[in-house]
């Protein structure tokens, strides 16, 4: 008997149709409903469960009441096990987080959630690392890689995973600064990672690297970088799984979303702020090791704002080491890497071409634009 958890954020996507960006915050939601918005997340969750109805008899669905999952499950023909209680019509992010924690306690095999970046962020806060999750896209803004391409695919992927036919990979959870976004500025944070099933393509000649081969590539990259590390130099490690692998190879625990500083193979500062970093680089020579963040491939400015323009200027372009698995670069579909430090001069300095280390003996020379 397999068991899945289902959490629906009933307000996900509600702002989009009526021209509001994002739906976080009670006020925005109220405005949206006033404007006549209809929650689509429920319908999408139902669609995603349909492929799973093939194994209805051997699948237990655990969910929250009414619009937070029960309705969608019943509409898909399931008789879910409903836990806890909500204030219907007035659910919030806290409810989503509580639901996620509950389902992890019940040890579901897979946690399905319908929503957008905000929902993914909530799930990320609540579940333990490596807990299998999968997003059903229902939000307006989806930058996070934890979502399936459409509700049907989410259901199919869930099926495969429950049948032991899909493996897990770590995917980024990004989110926009809501207020900034609505005011016309784009500012993303890397919140963390979730473990999501990935789909092996069906063909003989399928070439999507498995998490295993990606991990190997990350290790090869780490070896190449570590080999060239010199004493008495500060190495500023940006966030990301590739930089984390590098730290692991040095035997150091790295914060996944923060910026850490290493010297002579030792961690000398963790999760530093921009100010702390500036102080450090004033004191001794430094190099920056970064990897592109997010689906759009930001080198600086999304997820690693702590490495601010002054730090970059002090360290110098020639001391920036860019690392990336080729898979991540290929996903850019030959679009350039982007920088947005907030300082036009520094952006212009960074634009051009960077050598990217993509393996032990593999490199790329990739275009960067501001």
């Amino acid at each position, binding site marked *: 008997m397999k068991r899945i958890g289902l959490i629906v954020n009933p307000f996900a996507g509600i702002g989009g149709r009526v021209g509001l960006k994002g739906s976080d915050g009670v006020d925005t939601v109220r405005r949206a409903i006033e404007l006549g918005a209809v929650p689509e997340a429920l319908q999408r969750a139902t669609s995603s469960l349909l492929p799973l109805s093939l194994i209805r008899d051997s699948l237990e669905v655990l969910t929250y009441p009414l619009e937070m999952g029960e309705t969608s499950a019943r509409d898909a023909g399931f008789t879910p096990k409903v836990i806890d209680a909500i204030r219907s019509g007035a659910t919030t992010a806290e409810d989503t987080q509580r639901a996620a924690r509950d389902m992890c306690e019940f040890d579901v095999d897979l946690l399905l959630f319908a929503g957008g970046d905000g929902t993914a962020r909530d799930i990320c806060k609540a579940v333990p690392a490596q807990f299998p999750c999968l997003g059903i896209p229902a939000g307006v803004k989806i930058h996070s890689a934890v979502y399936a391409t459409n509700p049907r695919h989410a259901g199919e992927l869930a099926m495969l995973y429950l049948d032991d036919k899909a493996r897990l990979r770590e995917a980024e959870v990004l989110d926009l600064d809501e207020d900034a976004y609505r005011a016309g500025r784009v500012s993303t944070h890397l919140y963390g990672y979730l473990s999501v099933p990935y789909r092996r393509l069906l*063909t*003989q*000649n*399928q070439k999507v*690297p*498995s998490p*295993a*081969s990606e991990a*190997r*590539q990350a*290790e*090869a990259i780490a*070896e190449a970088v570590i080999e060239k590390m010199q004493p008495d130099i500060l190495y500023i490690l940006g966030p990301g799984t590739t930089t984390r692998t590098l730290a692991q190879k040095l035997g150091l625990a790295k914060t996944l979303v923060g910026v850490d500083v290493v010297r002579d193979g030792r961690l000398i500062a963790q999760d530093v702020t921009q100010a702390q970093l500036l102080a450090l680089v004033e004191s001794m020579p430094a190099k920056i090791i970064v990897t592109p963040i997010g689906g759009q491939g930001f080198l600086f400015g999304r997820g690693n704002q702590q490495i601010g323009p002054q730090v970059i200027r002090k360290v110098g372009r020639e001391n920036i080491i860019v690392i990336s698995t080729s898979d991540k670069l290929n996903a850019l579909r030959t679009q350039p890497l982007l920088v947005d430090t907030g300082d036009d001069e520094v952006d212009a300095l960074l634009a051009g071409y960077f050598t990217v280390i993509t393996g*032990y*003996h593999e490199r790329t020379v990739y275009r960067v634009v501001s």
Partner: protein
Amino acid sequence: MTPKKTVVYPYIPNSNPAVKAEMLKATGAKSVDEFYAEIPESIRLKRKLNLPEPFLSEAALVRHVEGLLAKNQSAREALSFLGGGCAQHHVPAVCDEINSRSEFLTAYAGEPYEDHGRFQSLFEYESMMAELLNMDVVNVPVYDGYQATGTALRMAGRITGRRIALLPASISPDNLSKIRDYVRPDMQVELVAFDPATGLMDLKALRVQINDQTAAVFIENPSYLGFLETQAAEIGSIAHEKGALFVVGVDPISLGVINPPIEYGGDIVCGDIQSLGIHMNYGGGQAGFIATRDEEKFVMQFPSRLFGIATTCVEGEYGFGDVAYERTSFAVREEGNEWVGTAAGLWGITAGVYLALMGPQGMQEIGRGSMQRARYAMQKMAAIPKVRVQFVDTPHFKEFVVDFNKTGKTVAEINKALHARGIFGGSDLSVEFPALGQSALYCITEVHTQADIDGLVFAIHEVVK
């Protein structure tokens, strides 16, 4: 550009002017030249290619090519005793029938649905080789035996993380040349001397040379020079004692009677399958194989395709596909698992047909027969005055070395005289193995009758007296 004569070519359906015009119209181009717009004038060829006048009619083409081929004298028109990695075995008619089937001949890289037959026939080839070798993993063929050896050694290097390969000094210099070039970035090759009387590897030397940097000890069994390495089991032990892998090159047609290397410690086995139902083709009939045990650490090092069997959504149906297609190297410094490319698929299918025709008894018979014929020839040769057989007390399979030093004649002279009598004498080893002097490598197979061998012996007798 001088105007071309309007020919409608049988191989180019749309060279028909009416069709061409219609298609141009559909693309919106006025002439084909527009499609080359991206090619700068500076690198456009401004003249016609200077090539020989073509034979537009098939009849004229056949006449021309047959005229060229007529200048060849095939091994069927002479009595040939040439070997050295390419052998004249009998090719069953069914082998040629199957590898001229247009479906097999012209297929390439389709999916295991519409190319199910291609996958099945190669899976069956892998499986039949597996029975010869008693090993569970065999690859889809690589280019030739030299390539297989080079790759097997690099695999050993990746698996052990070490850099040195020990090879027997009796290896073919051509094979050695290829291996050296191929393994160069990651490995070094060292030769281990052989006993000049027996041909066998000098175990004392091996024990001195092997150390904890040795990735592999490689032997050929039978050797390039034809003898069987009777110390194989011991060599394997020495290799394993030092943590090295034991890599063995074999002639698959010997495996009906000779023990497969896994039985005496072999870890990776390689070789060429040309002797299994493939014509010599002037050296174009080669194909290489690599086999290992079914352990992840070996499987993940294969650069070639490995076809596996699976179920489908229909009960009772077999499906096939690529095993571990995303193979990556475990040792991160190694530069990937070489490459996968077009190699020798059709020869793999052919070898499968051959093994199915021969069956267990056929392979036993041909193995035993080879050894009997070779021994007979060796006995008869040794009886010719001034002629010696090298390594005469060591068991041989189908090839052996004849020493002509006492005759005062060079192998080249002897072979010229033999050729005049309609015989291709054994290949000249004097350049490859100067220490053996004027020696030649003779190959006897099931195509040779006792009368053929007697005739050879008589001719040599005449030529050297």
